[in-house]
């Protein structure tokens, strides 16, 4: 069987189901609402694996699923050398979000990464600790800031409600996913003008490491033909 990994809940799951339906592949959840089991109709030899979107990159890289739907952001943050482990097949046109660096709107003196670096140096001298940036995208943020030459910052882990960390004084700036920017504005934050780390959207990926058994080749070819 070709294993297809799909986000297990919410809008991302519904949109994914819709997208596949438009390609004449019907995905559905089976059993009770709480049971993570699924079915595939309209194509033979494909089974559905419902997973948290955050786990799909790892499952693709381990070869436990052949195909998977998740965001570019998660693939690039969780998989080093991701190009060698997974291949993007189709951008799906939803789940669009930008990973950005944001600071308080009241920081009128900070608009660029260059400003952020200077503010971080002064902040460290004044407060005795580095300027803290709350995020769950540790690797992407660190690489982005290193390339930009920003020093004197520290990443603090934030797995949720990241926009609230500045007001709660557990961080001075954040790096997070935003789509409309409304949550940022509501929390008195603004995006740095050169603070776009990554544009992400839901994408269908193929694992480069998962073995496709001989009897499954026809099913894989059929899926690719339907999507193409």
């Amino acid at each position, binding site marked *: 069987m070709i294993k297809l990994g799909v986000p297990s809940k919410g809008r991302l799951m519904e949109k994914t189901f819709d997208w596949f339906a438009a390609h004449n592949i019907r995905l559905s959840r089976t059993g009770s609402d709480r049971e993570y089991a699924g079915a595939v109709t309209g194509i033979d030899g494909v089974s559905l694996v419902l997973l948290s979107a955050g786990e799909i990159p790892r499952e693709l890289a381990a070869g436990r699923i052949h195909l998977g739907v998740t965001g570019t952001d998660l693939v690039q943050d969780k998989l*080093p*050398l991701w190009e060698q482990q997974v291949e993007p097949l189709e951008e799906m046109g939803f789940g669009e979000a930008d990973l950005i660096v944001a600071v*308080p*709107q*009241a*920081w*009128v*003196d*900070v*608009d*660029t990464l*260059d*400003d952020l*670096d*200077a*503010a971080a*140096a*002064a*902040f460290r001298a*004044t*407060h005795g600790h*580095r*300027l803290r940036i709350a995020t769950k995208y*540790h*690797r992407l943020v*660190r*690489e982005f*800031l*290193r390339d*930009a*030459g920003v*020093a*004197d*910052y*520290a*990443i603090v882990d934030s797995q949720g409600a990241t926009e609230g960390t*500045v*007001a709660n*004084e557990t*961080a*001075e700036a954040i790096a997070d996913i935003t789509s409309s920017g409304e949550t940022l504005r509501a*929390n*008195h934050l603004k995006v740095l*003008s050169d603070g776009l780390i990554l544009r992400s959207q839901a994408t269908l990926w193929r694992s480069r490491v998962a073995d496709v058994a001989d009897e499954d080749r026809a099913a894989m070819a059929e899926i690719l033909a339907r999507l193409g």
Partner: protein
Amino acid sequence: MITREGRAKALALRDRFEAAGAQVVEPPMLQSAELLLDLYGEDIRARAYVTSDALRGEQMLRPDFTVPVVQMHMAHGADPARYTYAGEVFRRQEDDPDRANEFLQVGFEVFDRADPAAADAEVFALMAEAVAGLNLRAATGDIGILTAAVNGLRTTEARRAALLRHIWRPRRFRALLDRFAGRTPVPASRKALLANPQPRLGSAPLIGLRTDDEIEARISALHADAAAKPISDGEMDLLDTLLNVRETVPFALSHLRDLTVDMPSISDAVEGLAARSDALVARGVDVDTLDFEASYGRTSMEYYDGFVFGFYAAGRADLPAVVSGGRYDALTRRLGGGAEIPAVGAVLRPGLMAELEAGA
């Protein structure tokens, strides 16, 4: 992978350094993550493995020996002192699966106030002897000359400090320099901020730890910076000439001495290089064939602040340096709690040496 041959080689090298007058030390494998983060910043997390327990909090598997050796010396070492050690270091790898995440290092560190040039030469010569026969190319540099050049720039103190802070990030250093020389345009947002007599008026409520005073202070600093004269073309050319010096030591020295006519601030540092060159000759090093690159060592971890050097396998650009070392006076100051001492040291990688010997 650590092999028996590599481990045997490591112990033999440590014996050699002990015979050269060093005391054998055994720094702990687990280091305080807080200290390393404070020294290196967030980048260390990309290079070191972090673990933790409830008692001591975050610990890192040692990414190098220098920091614990300096800590130990500053805490209870009598000077002068020479130390040697051998053991594993751990480097987290995120980009290149072919690079080792665990390998052996053997080091030799000198804490000595008497004669820095002689100590530099002692460490270099000892390393050169240890790797003799492996057909390695040596490269040398001197971060102190660069620092002196920046300190001598006729510009504001704030600009010099900003440049010094980024001396180890060549790209950012260049961007700042171009900005300070007026060669890149001022960003529109900066212009608007400077043109606005009351930039804080109507802005959103202030959240977080950074205060009004800090924001005001930076706005004032930006006004002062905008009023400062650009760094002159003449000074920029001199700095470029300096950064591009890449010759054998005697030629580099005469070139740098010529530069001191227009850059008097580097005179002392250049004479330091001359003294080191003499000390190397006294140790039997052939300086006529030894390369000096003014920009060498700028992309390493940021504790070297004077002499820097490395030995590389000729024709094996895929391998990291077999030996790397340098002077780190400022690190002793950072870790010394008020005390400081001139210090220089180097590490070599016995595993790579064994590999090169087997391949030779």
